[in-house]
């Protein structure tokens, strides 16, 4: 009886922990998503997220964390394919600029100028091909 009670308490604690982690994740995704919709954060041609305007500490931390994970994923793919991390990153940049920047959101081209996505597709850098 004692044992099962103990198990119950443990299970309850586990549920609480998982719940807390979910909430933390949702909040983090929320901060970045909000910044993306407002245009404060945007996709860059180099394959990473960047700041169009100076971010709060929290936002900076969350975007940096995403970029670190992106770099990890790019590094894995680069190793598999025998190319540089930059090649992979830039190719992902072509992909995100082409498909994942909604109208009204910010994006950065290799010329270093932040622009706001219009209805028309983004004029991709020549190296992206077609």
């Amino acid at each position, binding site marked *: 009886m004692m044992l099962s009670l103990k198990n119950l308490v443990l299970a309850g604690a586990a549920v609480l922990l998982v719940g807390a982690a979910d909430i933390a994740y949702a909040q983090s*995704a929320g901060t970045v998503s909000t910044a993306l919709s407002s245009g404060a954060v945007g996709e860059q041609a180099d394959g990473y997220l960047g700041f169009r305007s100076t971010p709060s500490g929290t936002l900076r931390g969350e975007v940096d964390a995403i970029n670190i994970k992106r770099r990890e*994923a790019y590094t894995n793919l680069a190793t598999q394919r025998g190319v540089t991390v930059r*090649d992979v990153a830039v190719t992902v940049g*072509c*992909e995100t600029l082409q498909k994942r920047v909604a109208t009204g959101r910010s994006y950065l081209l290799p010329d270093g100028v932040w622009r706001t996505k219009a209805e028309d597709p983004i004029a991709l850098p020549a*190296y992206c091909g077609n």
Partner: protein
Amino acid sequence: MKQAALLLALAASALLAGCLQIQAPDKPIEINLNVNVKQEVILTLKKDAADLVNNNPELFPQ
């Protein structure tokens, strides 16, 4: 005979001088292949990159 050949050679060189003027460029000739090479790598990686983006939605928030 020898003189004729000489004359011919002279005439030929005069002609050449008249029509062909080759000047060495003052700047070195640069052929930039970087863009093409890069484009080729990008084309081969395109599908992988699309998969990477689609399979990791947490890294590409909307």
